[in-house]
């Protein structure tokens, strides 16, 4: 067994601080190895996005720890986590809507030198030829699927070791989701680990090695992706398949 790339240790997460704090995630233990594809599924309100924001460093943990490559990230701000190799596509994609596709992508490599950024841009445009075709288009005018490609591309521009994607398929047509999943397979083959979060278990688990299922802020089931998907208890109660 190799050492874990990402580990969440009894992590509590939520929004706000002090007397206005609202905890929505309790005691989550999650581990992900280098190069592994892990899915995290759960219904709306299960606490998935709070968990992602806490992993990315935008929200502070309420309890427990986030470790990346064995290092406790408690004192590492969000922007510095990107440099460590932890990149996240946040819920809602969060593109710079007034800027072009190319500008969005290049901003994803903000810490890199110009030649490095140009090289990564070429790689991302190979992965998503559509982004190359639309490079001068204003990001806010892209379709939903193109925006998701742009958001994933922007995160890849940081050359992460782990790519976390929140709400991969939200609001997207099945054909578009299939394209995105093909791209994720290529990204994983290139050695980047994936943590894919989605409400739709069928989508999140396709391609995944292992999966975690959350309900109302806690992990209620985890295991090999196929076992999780085949679990009748899960199908009936948590995913509604």
């Amino acid at each position, binding site marked *: 067994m190799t050492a874990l790339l990402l580990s969440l240790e009894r992590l509590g997460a939520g929004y706000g601080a002090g007397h206005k704090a609202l905890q929505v995630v309790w005691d989550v233990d999650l581990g992900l190895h280098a190069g592994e594809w892990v899915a995290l599924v759960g219904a709306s309100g299960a606490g998935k996005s709070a968990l992602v924001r806490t992993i*990315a*460093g*935008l929200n502070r943990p309420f309890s427990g720890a986030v470790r990346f490559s064995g290092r406790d990230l408690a004192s590492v*701000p*969000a*922007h*510095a986590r*990107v*440099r460590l190799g932890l*990149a*996240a*596509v*946040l819920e809602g994609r*969060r*593109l*710079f*809507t*007034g*800027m*072009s596709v*190319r*500008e969005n992508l*290049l*901003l*994803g*490599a*903000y*810490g890199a030198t*110009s030649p490095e*950024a140009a090289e990564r841009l070429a790689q991302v445009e190979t992965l998503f030829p559509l982004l190359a075709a639309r490079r*001068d288009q204003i990001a806010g005018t892209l379709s939903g699927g193109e925006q998701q490609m742009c958001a994933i591309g*922007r*995160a890849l*521009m*940081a050359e992460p070791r782990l790519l976390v994607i929140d709400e991969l398929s939200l609001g997207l047509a099945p054909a578009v989701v299939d394209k995105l999943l093909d791209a994720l397979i290529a990204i994983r083959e290139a050695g980047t680990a994936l943590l894919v979060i989605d409400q739709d278990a069928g989508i999140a688990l396709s391609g995944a090695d292992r999966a975690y299922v959350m309900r109302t802020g806690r992990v209620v089931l985890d295991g090999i992706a196929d076992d999780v998907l085949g679990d009748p208890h899960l199908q009936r109660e948590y995913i509604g398949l």
Partner: protein
Amino acid sequence: MPNSNPEPGRLFPAVPLAAAAAALAAAGLILDVYWLRILTGAFLFATVAQSINIIVGFTGYPAFGQVVFFGLGAYAVAIATADLSTPLIAAAVLAVAVGALFALVCGPPLFRLRGHYFAIGTLGLNEATKAIAANWTRLTGGGAGISLPLPTGSVAANGRVFFYAFLVLMLAATAAVWRLGRNRFGYACRAIRADEDGAEASGINPLFYKTAAWTLSAVFAALAGGFYAAWQNYVDPSTVFDMDIAVKGFVIFLLGGPGTVFGPVIAALALELVSTAVWGNLLTFHLGAMGLLIMLTVLYLPQGFPGLARRVRPALSRAGA
């Protein structure tokens, strides 16, 4: 890094700009004292508007109390020249240092706030600083203010000196804004304006760039205040920390179009000429007219003059066709 297709001001249109700058410079030789003063005021407010443009237009943080740096710069120059007999150039350097330091110190706590809360925070900062200036009598002379040493030359000659000083300052602020539309620093600011969480998740340190942008904007506001003190030979708290200065700067910034390069300059010249022509007769309603102008601008011209031009031009060509 990103350098193609910057949204504001693509190529620096060198020839028409040089011509405009030369025309303004030549105007300084021809105009009488009255018109020199009007234009000097326009340059002053264009500089304040560019200062606001850097933090509000590019970075997206509504710093309404930007006049605090104007006041600090004015007091730095007043105290340095009146009490310490420092030459004006050295006093201007002091104004820059005071403004920049103040932004660096106050930035990190204030930038914990966003949106309206940040705007109110900067208002509070200005009121607090004004109160300190009014009560720290030993340093500032309190409410009585400070009179600066009178210049030796003729009124016309001095008017000319300040005309050119403010012209150069306005051009420097505009050049800084133009650079911001094209360089890495400006991209980081615009990313923060577009989506701060998205920017941070892309590896951009928001606090660093917000504070840096505010410091840059503070330097120009402080210099404008410092030049103003030397120009008017007098400062007191209610004049140089006057919210009217910030409000007028904001009107010009909005009219000029947030995040544009030359908009604030054009708007400052237009507004100053219009207000000279019309509002000289509306002294009591001056602020009311200003407020009305802000509301009309935000409602009907959210992109300022440039937005109006973009809308009118196709309409005109349709009408012509």
